C-alpha cells in the first residue's frame, strides 16, 4: 500500500505484492446480462417443454386408458372447445367472467395498495388497521360466499364483493413489507438531498417497495381467478364457472376440461402480463444501460 512512507520503501524494493491484495468492492453483477440469441431460444424452448410434456402425458394417458374411461383426450377437448367457440357460447361466458374478475380486481387491488401504503407510511395508521386486517386475512374469504349471497343477493354484487375481498390481503401485506424493507440509508441520503415527505415517497419508498408490490400483485391475480371459480359455482346462469357446472349436469367431461384449460390459460396470461409490467418497471434490476 503506497499510503505510508515506510511501506513505499518496501514496495520500491520488491514487487508490490500487497497492493493488489485489496480489490475494489464491486457492486453485485447485474442479475441478468443480455444473452446471445441462441441461448435465448434454447431458454424459450425449455420453458415450453414442461407444458408439452404434460400434454403428451395427458394424451398418452387417455389413449392407453390410464385415466379412466370418462377422461377426454386433448383432441376431444380441443374439438369441444372449437364447437363452443363457434356457437358463440364460449365467448359470451368468458366475457361475463372476465368482467366479474375485472370489476373485483379494479376495486380490490387499489384498495389493498392504498391500505398498504397508509399503514406502511404512517405508523399510527398501521397500529389501527393492521390487527383487523390480519384477522380478516386469516378468515378464508371463500367461506364468505354463502354469507355474501345473503347480504348482497344472488346478483352480480355478491360475486364482485367476493372477488374484491381476496386480493386486498396479499397486496396489503406486500406493500407494507415492501415499504418497511426499503433501505433506511437510502431514505436518509435522499432526505439529506432535501427531499420532503412526498418526494421521499415517490422517488425512494415506492420504487424501493416495487419488487415486493409485484409479488403481491401476482398473488392477488391468482386469488382473483380462484375466487371467480367459487363465485360462479352457485346462483348464476352465466360465466365459465356456470359452463362447467352445466356440463357436469350432462356429464360433458370434454366441456368441463375446456373450462379447466381456460382457467389455466387465464392464470398463465395474467402472470405474463405482470412479468411484462415488471420488466418495464424494474429494468434497473437487470442492469440494462438502456436502448
Amino acid at each position, binding site marked *: *500500500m*503506497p*499510503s*505510508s*512512507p*515506510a511501506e*513505499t*520503501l*518496501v514496495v520500491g524494493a520488491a514487487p508490490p505484492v500487497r*497492493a493488489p491484495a*485489496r*480489490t*475494489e*468492492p*464491486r*457492486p*453485485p453483477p*447485474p442479475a441478468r446480462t443480455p444473452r446471445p440469441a441462441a441461448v435465448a431460444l434454447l431458454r424459450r424452448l425449455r420453458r415450453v417443454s414442461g407444458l408439452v410434456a404434460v400434454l403428451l402425458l395427458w394424451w398418452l394417458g387417455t389413449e392407453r386408458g390410464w385415466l379412466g374411461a370418462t377422461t377426454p383426450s386433448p383432441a376431444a377437448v380441443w374439438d369441444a372447445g372449437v364447437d363452443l367457440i363457434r356457437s358463440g357460447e364460449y365467448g359470451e361466458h368468458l366475457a361475463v367472467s372476465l368482467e366479474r374478475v375485472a370489476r373485483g380486481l379494479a376495486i380490490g387491488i387499489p384498495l389493498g395498495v392504498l391500505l398498504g401504503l397508509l399503514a406502511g407510511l404512517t405508523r399510527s395508521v398501521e397500529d389501527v388497521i393492521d390487527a383487523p386486517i390480519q384477522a380478516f386475512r386469516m378468515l378464508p374469504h371463500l367461506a364468505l360466499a354463502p354469507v355474501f349471497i345473503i347480504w348482497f343477493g344472488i346478483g352480480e354484487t355478491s360475486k364482485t364483493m367476493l372477488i374484491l375481498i381476496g386480493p386486498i390481503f396479499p397486496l396489503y401485506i406486500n406493500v407494507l413489507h415492501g415499504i418497511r424493507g426499503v433501505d433506511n*440509508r*437510502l431514505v*436518509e*441520503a*435522499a*432526505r*439529506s*438531498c*432535501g*427531499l420532503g415527505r412526498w*418526494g421521499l415517497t415517490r*422517488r*425512494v419508498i415506492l*420504487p*424501493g417497495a*416495487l419488487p415486493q408490490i409485484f409479488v403481491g400483485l401476482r398473488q392477488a391475480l391468482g386469488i382473483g381467478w380462484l375466487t371467480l371459480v367459487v363465485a360462479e359455482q352457485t346462483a348464476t346462469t352465466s360465466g365459465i364457472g356456470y359452463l362447467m357446472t352445466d356440463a357436469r349436469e350432462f356429464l360433458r367431461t370434454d366441456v368441463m376440461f375446456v373450462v379447466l384449460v381456460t382457467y389455466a390459460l387465464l392464470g398463465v396470461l395474467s402472470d405474463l402480463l405482470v412479468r411484462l409490467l415488471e420488466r418495464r418497471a*424494474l*429494468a*434497473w*434490476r437487470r*442492469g*440494462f*444501460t*438502456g436502448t
Partner: protein
Amino acid sequence: MPTPALSPSPPAREPAAHDGVRVHGLRRVFDGRVVLDDADLTIAPGEFVALLGPSGSGKSTLLRALGGLDPEAEGHIEVPGRSAVVFQEHRLLPWERVWRNVTLGVRGGDLRARATAALEEVGLAERADAWPGTLSGGESQRVALARALVRTPQLLLLDEPFGALDALTRLKAQHLVEALWEEHRPSVLLVTHDVEEALLLADRALLLGDGAIAAEFVVDIPRPRPLDHPELVRLRTELLAGLGVHAPAEHGRTA
C-alpha cells in the same frame, strides 16, 4: 430538516449569516450511553477540517448532527444554508439513472444540464444514463460526490467517503476531493479513520475523545503535500499517539 427553533432541546439549524459552522454544547445520548458531551466545533468558511477518533467515539454522530440527520442531538448548531453529505456507501438510488440521482431533490430548470456539469467535474459525464448498479465502487462514489457538488454546498460533509475503496482508487478520490475543494471552496468536515488522509487533505485535524474535541492539530503544509514531508510525518506520529497507537512503526520494519 426544517426543525422549528422554538423548543430548547432540538438543535436549531439556522442558516448562518456567514459560511461556516459553529457548534456549542452538542450532546447526544444513545440509550443512556453518552456519545457526545458538550462538544464544541468551529469551521471557518472554506476551511477543510478532518475529524478523527477511535471507533464509536462519535465522529459520524457529530457529522450527522451537522447534516441535520439526527433530530435527537441536543445543543446549538449553526450551519450554512446549503450543505451536502457524502456517505461511506454511495447510497445511490438503484432505480434512478445516474443523472437523476445527481439531481435528486434539486429544484429548478434544466436539471439534465446541471447533472452533466457536475458529472463532468468528477469525470463521469458519459455515464449519465447508466444505472447505478453498473458502476464500480469508485465510480459510484464519484457520482455521490457529483450529487453533493450539484447543490453548490457551502458546507460539505464527508463521512468516511473513501473507506470502502481500494487503495489506488482511494488515492485518486482523495485528489479529486482536494481539487474540487480548491475549485469551489466549501467548508468541509471530513470524518475519517485514516490519519494520512486527514493530513493530506485538511487544514486542521481534530481528535474526538470522551465526547468532545480532545485535541487539535493545525496542518500548515503547502499543497500538494508529499507523504514524506517531515512535518507531516511528525504530525502523523502525534496523531497516532493521540489515537492510542504508540507503535514504533518506522523501526524494525525495513530490517
